[in-house]
């Protein structure tokens, strides 16, 4: 991307707010932009199929993408990650060069930067300071997957749903808000916790009656974060008060 592109300013702004790039000097980001190109997808388009995961690395500038796998026999979908602005994908093939058996689908109109793996590897080699953000980001992704595996094995659907809400709650506002999942359908929420829509409907209704959440069609809000945390603690039997350090 060239510096006189009309999209340049917005792109720089998005990167400066991202977990992966915010710590980098502007000159390093500019060097990166010279090698990355801009691409867009309309909502619901397939961004990448498994066989394409070994070609390019993407950084989301605006919109969301889901990383999922579908059981070809049942059609049941499991959403592994929901990615938003500033997130990079697909990190696993970037590291090991092997196909990742997942699909990437745009959940909104999606704008991303992309570059071939070799270009990204060269850039990282030239700018090792990127690793200061990249390694913790990678650690966070691994921890999310590990938590998900434990949750699926050890906790019931209600607890998994509440933990999903907590994981996506932005705490630094005067009022807590849900990030990325606030407008998802119950079916999509179910796909993120390995459940089905009817079960999620039931739990959402319960949480709504207890005044913990506010759910309307296409809009989900946390009304009582403390009650949500207490309820999770009760179900999990572990303190989640140190969530910031453990999640």
């Amino acid at each position: 991307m060239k510096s006189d592109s009309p999209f340049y300013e917005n792109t720089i702004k998005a990167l400066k707010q991202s977990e992966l790039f915010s710590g980098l000097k502007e000159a390093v980001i500019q060097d990166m932009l010279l090698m990355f190109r801009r691409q867009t997808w309309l909502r619901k388009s397939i961004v990448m199929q498994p066989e394409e995961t070994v070609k390019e690395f993407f950084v989301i500038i605006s919109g969301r993408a889901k990383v999922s796998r579908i059981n070809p026999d049942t059609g049941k979908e499991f959403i592994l990650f929901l990615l938003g602005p500033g997130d990079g994908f697909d990190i696993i093939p970037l590291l090991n060069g092997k196909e990742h058996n997942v699909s990437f689908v745009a959940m909104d109109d999606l704008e991303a930067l992309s570059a071939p793996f070799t270009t990204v590897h060269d850039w990282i080699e030239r700018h090792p300071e990127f690793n200061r953000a990249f390694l913790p980001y990678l650690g966070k992704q691994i921890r999310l997957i590990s938590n998900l595996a434990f949750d699926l094995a050890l906790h019931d659907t209600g607890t998994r749903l509440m933990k999903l809400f907590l994981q996506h709650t932005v705490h630094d506002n005067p009022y807590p808000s849900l990030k990325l999942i606030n407008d998802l359908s119950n079916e999509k929420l179910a796909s993120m916790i390995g459940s089905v829509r009817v079960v999620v409907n039931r739990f959402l209704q319960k949480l709504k009656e207890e005044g913990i959440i506010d759910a309307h069609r296409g809009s989900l809000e946390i009304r009582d974060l403390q009650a949500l945390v207490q309820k999770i603690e009760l179900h999990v039997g572990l303190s989640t008060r140190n969530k910031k350090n453990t999640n």
Partner: protein
Amino acid sequence: MSGKQKSAVSIFNTHTDAEDAVRELQKSGFDMKKLSIAGKDYHSGDSVAGYYNTGDGVKYRGKSGVFWEGVWETVLGSAFFIIPGIGPVVFGGPLVKWIISALEGATLVDGLNAIGTVFYSIGIPNDSILEYETSLKSNKLLLVANGIAEEVEQARKILEATKATDTTVHHG
């Protein structure tokens, strides 16, 4: 993703830059039937702008008549529309056919003009459409290369090496 239609859209500051890019695409063997161009070429009071057919092809009278007639020898189709919010815009290539279809079929997308509707139909999201319309308004030119993945990738590589200020690949 091969087989699926994509578009590469480039923005150029000047007619010369756009003309050079068209020439580069032609040299590379890109199918010129899949290349479109759009740009304003009308400055009130500067000169007469007009568009007519003399029987042996379309003639364009305007500030950059030579440029447009050169482009029209290369791409398929030509038109001159007054687009609300943008003004008079000259088009060449398949964009012409798509705009006419949008106008005749009354298939305009809510909140979008004819060119916005066409851009949306080829997979360009709203934010980018707004930016392209702003570019047209400020007298920049757009080149749109569409086709299957391999064709668009070939066009993108060439366009990125030109003086285009931006080249974006849009997936439908």
